[in-house]
C-alpha cells in the first residue's frame, strides 16, 4: 500500500497531463485546470517546508549551543521580525518594505557582487591556456568581453585605419554577435537537444515508476 499508491498517483497524473496536451476539449481542460490548482495549493505548503527545515536546523544549533549558535539567534530574529511585519502590516506595509529595501536588497546584491572580485582573481590565476580547449575558451571569452562593451567599438574606431573603420564601424560588436549566434548557438543547441532527450527519459521513468530517487529522501 505505502509503495503502490504513490506509484499509481504518479502514473495517472503523468499520463493525464501528457495526453491532455493534445486534447483541446473542455471536459479535459476543466480536469486539467483542477490539477493545476491542486499543484498550486500543494506548492504553498512546499514553500513553508523549506522554512521548516531551516527553523529546525537553527533551533537545534541554539539548544545544543553548538559553535556559532549566536548566529542562529540572528537568523531567528530576522525571520520573526520580517514575517510579522509582513503578515500584520501587509506586503505594502511600511516596515516590511523598509526591511526589504534596506536589508534584503543590499545584502543579496552585495553578496553576489563579491563574485566580481573572485572572478577577477580567478581570471588572473586560474585561466591559463594550458590546453587547446582552454585556449579556445579564453579566446572566445575575450572576444565577447571586448565586443560587448562600448569601449570595444570605441578603441577599434580610434586605433584601426580609417578605411577599415568606414567599412565596419562596429567590428568588435559584430564579431562578438557572430560568436554568440554562430558557434556558441550551435553548441548550446546541441547541448539543449541532448538535455531534452535526457529530461524526456527521466520524466518517462518517473511516470512508469522506474525512477524513484525522489522518494529516497523521505525514507531517510
Amino acid at each position: 500500500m505505502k509503495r503502490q499508491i504513490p506509484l499509481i498517483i504518479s502514473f495517472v497524473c503523468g499520463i493525464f497531463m501528457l495526453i491532455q496536451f493534445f486534447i483541446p476539449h473542455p471536459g479535459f481542460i476543466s480536469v486539467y485546470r483542477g490539477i493545476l490548482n491542486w499543484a498550486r495549493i500543494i506548492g504553498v505548503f512546499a514553500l513553508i517546508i523549506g522554512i521548516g527545515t531551516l527553523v529546525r536546523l537553527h533551533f537545534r544549533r541554539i539548544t545544543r549551543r553548538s559553535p556559532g549558535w549566536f548566529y542562529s539567534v540572528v537568523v531567528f530574529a530576522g525571520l520573526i521580525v520580517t514575517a510579522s511585519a509582513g503578515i500584520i502590516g501587509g506586503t505594502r506595509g511600511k516596515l516590511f518594505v523598509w526591511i526589504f529595501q534596506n536589508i534584503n536588497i543590499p545584502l543579496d546584491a552585495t553578496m553576489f557582487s563579491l563574485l566580481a572580485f573572485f572572478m577577477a582573481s580567478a581570471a588572473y590565476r586560474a585561466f591559463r591556456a594550458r590546453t587547446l580547449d582552454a585556449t579556445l575558451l579564453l579566446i572566445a571569452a575575450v572576444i565577447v568581453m571586448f565586443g560587448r562593451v562600448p569601449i570595444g567599438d570605441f578603441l577599434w574606431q580610434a586605433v584601426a585605419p580609417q578605411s577599415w573603420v568606414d567599412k565596419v564601424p562596429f567590428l568588435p560588436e559584430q564579431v562578438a554577435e557572430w560568436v554568440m549566434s554562430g558557434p556558441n548557438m550551435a553548441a548550446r543547441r546541441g547541448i539543449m537537444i541532448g538535455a531534452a532527450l535526457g529530461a524526456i527519459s527521466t520524466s518517462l521513468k518517473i511516470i512508469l515508476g522506474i525512477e524513484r530517487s525522489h522518494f529516497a529522501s523521505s525514507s531517510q
Partner: protein
Amino acid sequence: MSLTERLLNIDRRYIYLVIAVAVLVPFILPFHMPVYVSQPVRSVYDFIEALPEGSVVLVGFNYSPSTMPELYPMSLAVLKHCCSRKLKIIGMTLYSSAATIGDTALKEMAESCSYQELQDYVYLGYKPNFEATMLGIGEDIADPFPTDYMNRPVTEISMMKNIKNYRDIALVIDLGSGNTPEAWIAYAGSRYGQKIASGCTGVMVSGLYPYLKAGQLVGLIGGLKGAAEYEKLVKLTGKATLGMNAQSMAHLAIIFLVLLGNVVYLISRHKARKKVKV
C-alpha cells in the same frame, strides 16, 4: 624571489584592488562612449513599437534582489517604452523575492508617465510553481491570480474585464534571472503560441541564443549592456547607460589580468624547462 614568481604568487587582494579601481574611476572621471544597439535588443523594441495602442503586455519580474543592478534599469526602460506606447501592463512575478521589486518598478513607472493602477496597469504579485502559473494563464488568468497584489478580486478590476488568457495578451516580457524564459517558451510559447521577449542577466544570454535564433523569442535584452542599449532606444539616461563606462573599464582590466596571467605562466613554464635542460 624573481619577478615572475612574485607575480605568480601575488596576494589576491591586490587583484581585488585593481577591479575596485577600474570600477570606481569612471564614476569620478566620467567620459562618454556611444552605445551600439544590437539586433536582438532592437527586435524587442521594434515589436513593442509596432503594437497598437491599448494592447496588453504581461511583464514578469522574475529576478531576485541580487540581480537588481542588471535587471532593474532594464525593467524601467522596458516599462517606459510600454507606457509611452500607451499599452496596458499586467505585472506579475514567479519569484517570491521579487514581489516587492515588481511593485516598486511599476509604481516608479506610473509616477513618471501618469499611469493609474487598475486602469492602465495591474500588479498581480507572486505565485509559486512556474508550470502551473504559466499554463493557468493560458486557460484563465483568474485561475492562477484570483486576486491582485493587494488581494482585490481580479474579476472586479476594470482593466482586466477584457483580458482572459494569452489570446488577449500581445506579448509576454520576461525579466528574469533564472530559468523562467525557458519555462515561458515551453509552457506559454509551444502550448499557446504566445509571443515572448526576454530580458535576462548576462549569465543566461548564451543559453538563450538557440531560442532566439529559432524564433521562439521575439528578441533578447542581455545584461547591463542590453539594458543600456534599450535605454538608448527609448532615449533615457538611466543607471545602465551610466554604468557602461565602469563596465568597459572593468572588462579591460579583466582582459588585461587574463593576458598578464598567461604571459607570466608561459615565462615561468619556459624557465622551468630551461632548468631541466641544465
